[in-house]
C-alpha cells in the first residue's frame, strides 16, 4: 500500500504551495487529523505544448492565480485548494487519457478546462461515466445543447453568443453596410460562427447581401488568395472567426493590400486580447469581441487579477482562456461553499443558478442547460493608445449586449437534461 502511494505521488503534478501541505499531510499527520485538512483537488486540462500552447499556458496561469487568491484567504471551507494540471496536447485521445488519470489516479473532485471543443466534447462522456463535474473552458454550444448533461457546464460565452453579439454590434454601429463576406476557419467552430453571425443579422431584420463565404484550413500559411478574393468581392463588411496565430497571419498579410481601408468594417468574434499584444504597433483598427477584455471593468477582482498576473508572469493577461479558467475555479469555490460539501450532486445544484463576479464581469449559470450567461457581452474597436504598448478598444466604441438577450433560447438549445 505504501509503495503504491509513492508511485502515485510520482505521477501527480502538484502546483503551488498545495504540494508541501499535501506532502506533510500524507507522511506526517495521523489519518484522523488528516481528514479535515485534506485538500480539495481540481483537475485541469489545457494545451501547454505545441502550437496551441499560446492558449493553454495562460489558461493554466489563470487557474493558478485563482488558486493563490483562494489559498491566501484560507482555502475553501478551511481546506486548501490543490490544482492538478495536465497537458491535453490538443488531442482528444490524450484528453480522454488524462481525464481518466485525473479522476482515477489523482482522485480530483472536479475537472475543468480544454481550449478546443474536440478535446472538451471528448470529456463529456467521461464526466457522465465517472459522475464528475466537468466545466468546459472552450466555446462550443454543444456542451449545453445536444451534448448537455447534468455533470457538464460551460460558464463562458458560447460560439452563438459571440457571433450574434458581433452581428448586433455591426447592425448598431455600421447600419449602412449591406454587403457582407466571411472568412472563417474550416472547421466546426468556423462554420457555426458564420452561420450564427448571419442569424444575428436576420434577427435584427438587417438587410444583408452575402457576397463571399470563404473558409481556410487551420494553420494556413498563405492567406493572400483569400484576401484578394475578399477584396475582389467588393465586400463592405467582413466577419471572421479566425483566432490565435491564424488571425495574426491573416491581419499581417492583409494589411499591405490596404484591406483595412477598403473594407469598412472587419469584425472578429473571438479576439483573444493576445492578438493585440502579439501584433503590438502593427495592429489594425477592427472590431473585436472577446470573452475577456482586461480594461473594461474597473472592479476590484479584475484589478487584482491583472496585477497578480503581471507580477507573477511578467505580461498582460491577454488570452481569454486565462480569465475563463480563473472564473471556473472561482465558480467552483463558491458552489462548494454554497453546498457546504464537495459532494457532486449537491455542487451541481449549487452551480445551477449561481451568480458570481469574476474579472470577466458578472455571470449567472442558467439551471436548465448549465450555460453561463454574462451580464453583458462587450465589443469595441481597436485604436492606438499611448498608455499601452499595444492597441486597445477605443472606449467611445464600447458596445454591450446583455447576455440574456443573446443566450440561446431554451427551446432551441436541443438540450434534454437527464437527472443526475
Amino acid at each position, binding site marked *: 500500500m505504501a509503495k503504491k502511494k509513492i508511485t502515485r505521488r510520482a505521477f501527480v503534478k502538484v502546483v503551488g504551495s498545495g504540494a508541501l501541505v499535501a506532502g506533510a499531510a500524507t507522511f506526517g499527520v495521523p489519518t484522523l487529523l488528516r481528514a479535515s485538512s485534506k485538500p480539495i483537488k481540481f483537475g485541469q486540462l489545457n494545451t501547454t505544448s505545441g502550437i496551441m500552447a499560446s492558449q493553454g499556458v495562460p489558461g493554466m496561469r489563470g487557474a493558478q492565480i485563482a488558486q493563490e487568491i483562494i489559498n491566501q484567504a484560507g482555502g475553501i471551507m478551511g481546506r486548501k485548494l490543490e490544482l492538478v494540471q495536465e497537458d491535453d496536447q490538443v488531442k482528444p485521445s490524450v484528453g480522454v487519457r488524462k481525464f481518466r488519470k485525473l479522476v482515477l489516479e489523482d482522485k480530483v473532485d472536479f475537472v475543468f478546462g480544454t481550449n478546443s471543443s474536440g478535446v472538451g466534447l471528448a470529456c463529456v462522456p467521461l464526466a457522465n461515466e465517472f459522475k464528475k463535474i466537468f466545466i468546459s473552458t472552450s466555446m462550443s454550444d454543444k456542451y449545453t445543447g445536444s451534448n448537455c448533461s447534468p455533470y457538464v457546464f460551460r460558464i463562458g460565452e458560447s460560439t452563438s453568443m459571440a457571433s450574434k453579439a458581433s452581428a448586433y454590434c455591426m447592425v448598431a454601429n455600421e447600419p449602412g453596410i449591406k454587403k457582407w463576406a466571411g472568412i472563417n476557419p474550416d472547421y466546426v467552430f468556423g462554420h457555426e460562427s458564420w452561420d450564427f453571425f448571419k442569424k444575428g443579422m436576420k434577427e435584427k431584420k438587417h438587410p444583408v447581401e452575402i457576397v463571399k463565404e470563404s473558409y481556410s484550413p487551420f494553420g494556413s500559411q498563405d492567406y493572400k488568395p483569400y484576401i484578394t478574393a475578399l477584396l475582389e468581392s467588393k465586400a463592405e463588411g467582413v466577419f471572421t472567426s479566425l483566432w490565435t496565430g491564424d488571425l495574426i497571419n491573416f491581419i499581417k498579410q492583409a494589411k499591405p493590400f490596404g484591406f483595412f481601408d477598403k473594407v469598412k468594417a472587419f469584425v472578429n468574434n473571438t479576439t483573444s486580447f493576445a492578438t493585440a499584444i*502579439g501584433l503590438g504597433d502593427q495592429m489594425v483598427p477592427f472590431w473585436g469581441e472577446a470573452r475577456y477584455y482586461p480594461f473594461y471593468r474597473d472592479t476590484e477582482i479584475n484589478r487584482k487579477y491583472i496585477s497578480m498576473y503581471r507580477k507573477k508572469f511578467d505580461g498582460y493577461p491577454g488570452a481569454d482562456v486565462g480569465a475563463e479558467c480563473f472564473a471556473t475555479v472561482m465558480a467552483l469555490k463558491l458552489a462548494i461553499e454554497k453546498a457546504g460539501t464537495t459532494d457532486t450532486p449537491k455542487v451541481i445544484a449549487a452551480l445551477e443558478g449561481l451568480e458570481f463576479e469574476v474579472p470577466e464581469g458578472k455571470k449567472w449559470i442558467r439551471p436548465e442547460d448549465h450555460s453561463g450567461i454574462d451580464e453583458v457581452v462587450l465589443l469595441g474597436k481597436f485604436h492606438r493608445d499611448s498608455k499601452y504598448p499595444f492597441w486597445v478598444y477605443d472606449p467611445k466604441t464600447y458596445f454591450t449586449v446583455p447576455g440574456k438577450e443573446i443566450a440561446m433560447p431554451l427551446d432551441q438549445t436541443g438540450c434534454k437534461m437527464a437527472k443526475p
Partner: protein
Amino acid sequence: MELSYLIYQLIIGLSYSMLLFLISSGLTIIFGLLNIPNFAHGTLYMLGAYFTYFFLHSLPGASFVVAIILAVIAVGVIGAFLEYVPLRKIYERSHALQLLMTFSFILMLDDATKYFAGTDFLSIATPKLMAGSFTLPGDREMPVYSLFIILCGLVVAYLLWLGLYKTRLGKLVQAGTANKEMLSALGINVPRLFTLVFVLGAVLAGLAGGLAGPLKAVSVGMGETIIITIFAIVIVGGVGSLKGAFIASILVGELNTFGVVFFPSFAMAFTYILVILVLLTKPEGLFRIK
C-alpha cells in the same frame, strides 16, 4: 474571369511559391547528399524567425537585414551542432530511424524556444521601405514585400545554381548526390562536406524563417505546420534536385492560390492531391537525380 485578375493571382501565388522554395531548397540538398530526411527542417525555419525577432528587438538600431543575417548565422551554428553531434552517428541507419532522430530535435528545439521566448505570439514588423504596395489597374494592390520575397527566391535560386554547377564544391555535392562511393574514391573529406552542406541547408531554412517573419505570427510549432508541405515539394520535385524543388514549389504555391480562388472547399487537400498525381505518373518525382 478577366485575364488581368489571373495574372495578378499568378504573381501573388509566386510570392508564396518562392517562400516555399527558400525552405525546400535547403531540405532537398541535405536529403540528396546526406540522404537524411531532416524532419526538423521546419523547426530551423521557426528558429530563423525567432532569432530575427530577437536580434531586431535586443540590438539597438539593428535593421531587418542585419537581424536576418545574424539569425541566419545563429541557425547555421545550431545546424552544425545537430549534424556534428547526433546525426553523424546514424548516417548508415534506416530512413525511419533518421526521421525519428530529427523528430526528437523538433521536440527539444520547440520546448527550448518555449522556455526562452514564452508562448505568446511575436510579430516582426515589415521593414518601412517595403511596407507599402503598388496599386495596379482595377484598384488591386500588390504588396512590395511580396515582390521582395519573389526577388529573394530568384536570387537564392540563381546563387545556388551558380554554386552547384559552377564551383568545385558544387560539383562534388552533385557527384555525391548521385553516387556516394565516388566521393571517398576521390579522396574527399566526406564528413566535412556533409557538415558544410547541412549548415547550408539550415542557413536557407533560417533565411526563409526571417523573411517569413513579417507575414506570420512567430510562434512555437510554426515549423510543424509547414514541414509536410516542404517534404511534399522535395518528393514531387525529386530528392536532391534543386530544379525539381523550384518547379514543385511553384506548382504547390500556384495550386494553392488558384485552388483557393476556384475550388476553395478543397484547400486542405491540394498538396496531397498533387503528390498523388505526380507520384503515380512519375514514381521518383519530376526530376530524378541519377
